[in-house]
């Protein structure tokens, strides 16, 4: 098992990155959200992206999820260059995403939300609602997400339940790459730990998990590598096992300079 491995995989040649960004730039109007960002993620590992508000974490996740295209730079999925992307293409390329805003539809029931954009069909055009009800219930039960009924409208659920549905949806898609943007934001201590178990299980099955979270303790416990962003730049990458909390906090807040700057000086 690769988790807890001491090797910094960026230097290991044993496996190729499933997801790679090089020299990634992204601006919105006058705001440059990503500056020359570099990211490599490997199968069977959890790469955590850390950073303060406005560091570019969510932008980076949205680039990976196909919501935004990079202005400049390269995005590679399984070594294949992606020129123009979209959420649909990202999904077809094997990427599932738990968005920060969850991307759920409040006026639809849980099952419809679980199969949003990829409904089970009966014949060519008909929705197979019955199978979606059954399979949604099975997926939720397997992950221990408790909901009143898969027929309940999403708008009737609590924040934690909604988060559970969004995570279950990404897990059910069974894609090799899973992006999670603040997956524990609405969760209590117990449920957060449970999400950690889900992440471990995903990496054990050889999937690549990219995790964005404010919760430093959670990240240090459940990730294999850390990528710290600050003001759109990569401050540095660390293997979680060798990282210490003070240094990571210093990197996030900018108390220490970026690795690149240190290398230059």
């Amino acid at each position, binding site marked *: 098992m690769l988790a807890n491995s001491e090797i910094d995989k960026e230097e290991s040649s044993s496996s190729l990155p499933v997801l790679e960004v090089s020299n990634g730039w992204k601006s919105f109007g006058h705001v440059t959200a990503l500056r020359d960002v570099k990211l490599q993620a490997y199968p069977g590992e959890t790469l955590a992206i850390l950073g303060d508000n406005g560091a570019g974490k969510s932008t980076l996740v949205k680039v990976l999820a196909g919501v935004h295209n990079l202005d400049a730079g390269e995005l590679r999925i399984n070594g294949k260059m992606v020129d123009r992307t979209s*959420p*649909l293409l990202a999904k077809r390329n094997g990427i599932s995403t738990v968005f920060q805003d969850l*991307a759920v539809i409040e006026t639809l029931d849980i099952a419809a939300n679980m199969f949003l954009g990829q409904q089970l069909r009966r014949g060519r055009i*008909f929705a197979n609602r019955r199978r979606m009800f059954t399979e949604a219930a099975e997926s939720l039960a397997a992950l221990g997400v408790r909901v009143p009924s898969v027929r309940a409208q999403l708008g009737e659920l609590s924040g934690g339940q909604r988060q*559970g549905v969004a995570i279950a949806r990404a897990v059910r898609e069974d894609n090799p790459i899973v992006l999670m943007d603040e997956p524990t934001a609405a969760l209590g201590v*117990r449920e957060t730990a449970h*999400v950690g178990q889900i992440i471990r299980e995903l990496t054990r099955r050889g999937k690549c998990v990219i995790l964005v979270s404010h919760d430093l303790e959670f990240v240090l416990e459940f990730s294999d590598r850390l990528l710290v962003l600050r003001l759109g730049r990569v401050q540095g990458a660390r293997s979680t096992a060798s990282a210490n909390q003070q240094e990571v906090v210093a990197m996030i807040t900018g108390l220490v300079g970026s690795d690149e700057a240190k290398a230059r000086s």
Partner: protein
Amino acid sequence: MLEPDTIEPGLPTGPKGAADETRVPTLSKVAAGETRLPALRRIALSPSLALALTIGIFVLYGLTQTSEFASGAVWINIVRDASFTAIIASFEAIVIIGGGIDLSVGSIFAAGAMVSAALASQGLSPFIAFAAGTMTGAGVGLVNGLIVNYFSIPAIIVTLGTMFGVSSLVVHFSQGQPIAPLPNSFAYIGQNDLFGVPYIIYVAVVIAVIAYLLLHATTLGWNVRALGANREAARSSGIRVRALSISLYVYCGAAAAFAGGLEAARLGAGSPDFGTGLELTVIAAAIIGGTSIYGGLGTIPGAALGSLLLSVLATGLILLNIDPTLQDLATGVVLILAAGLDQVRRRQMFRTSARRAHAAENG
């Protein structure tokens, strides 16, 4: 809501759950009962039921006032009038549920009528005449959809623009003159009955059923609701929102133009002033039928019943000897009541969320 304790790690519930239980025991009991009866609650709040009851009560009252309410001929007229509205309202509802709106259906109705009538009067087969009229409407719908989705101009503005534009083109090409007479082969479907019921009504039922299947049974229908409720989430989930949205305007335009062709067949003439103000009747029917103007919610049976209610009111108020100038007042009141019901439904949905979440934690 109190505690987002919902992902259950398989551990026994701790003292926190127990504390909740003692704090608000009655609330959780109420909630548990409610989760067992979501279907009943939903039916009770359904706009279709409210509509059916409204129509029923109005008709019962009418029957106590005049026996004409029991006349078959009167009802055939009521339902035939409703048919035209319902054909368009079914697809207008789908556009609105998908987060848009189409104000150009009245103009498209006239365009469809005139194109069909022009071709029929040239001696072309009724099939070709209807097909060409319908395609004209689909074409205008395509223009609506493309502009709305690629130029990010609000649908209400774009379709208001095409409403004026199409109407102007119809008058221009027809020189403002009606096209008549039309051959019997074309007028046949608009003027004849089967088992005493006009063909028009069968046609409307078939089209409403198609719209129903589209919205309620196909994957497209579920994507439409996602699109209307939360376009960003729909896009993030891999739904091709632009193509989907464009297709809805195409269907709606086609339905409006086809209905225009039917009207030309019924009257044996096409006139450029067909469909004036029809867009507002159609939108009112959809909203009265429970379509939420905010998108995401609505049903086809509701839109059909909304069309029927407007038609029943129009004829019924005349039968009751109420000043016909007050008819639109009744329509207005019903419309606002329907929109109010939509608000209540939404609020109800989110108010119960707290209780439900609680029930799930403790149940």
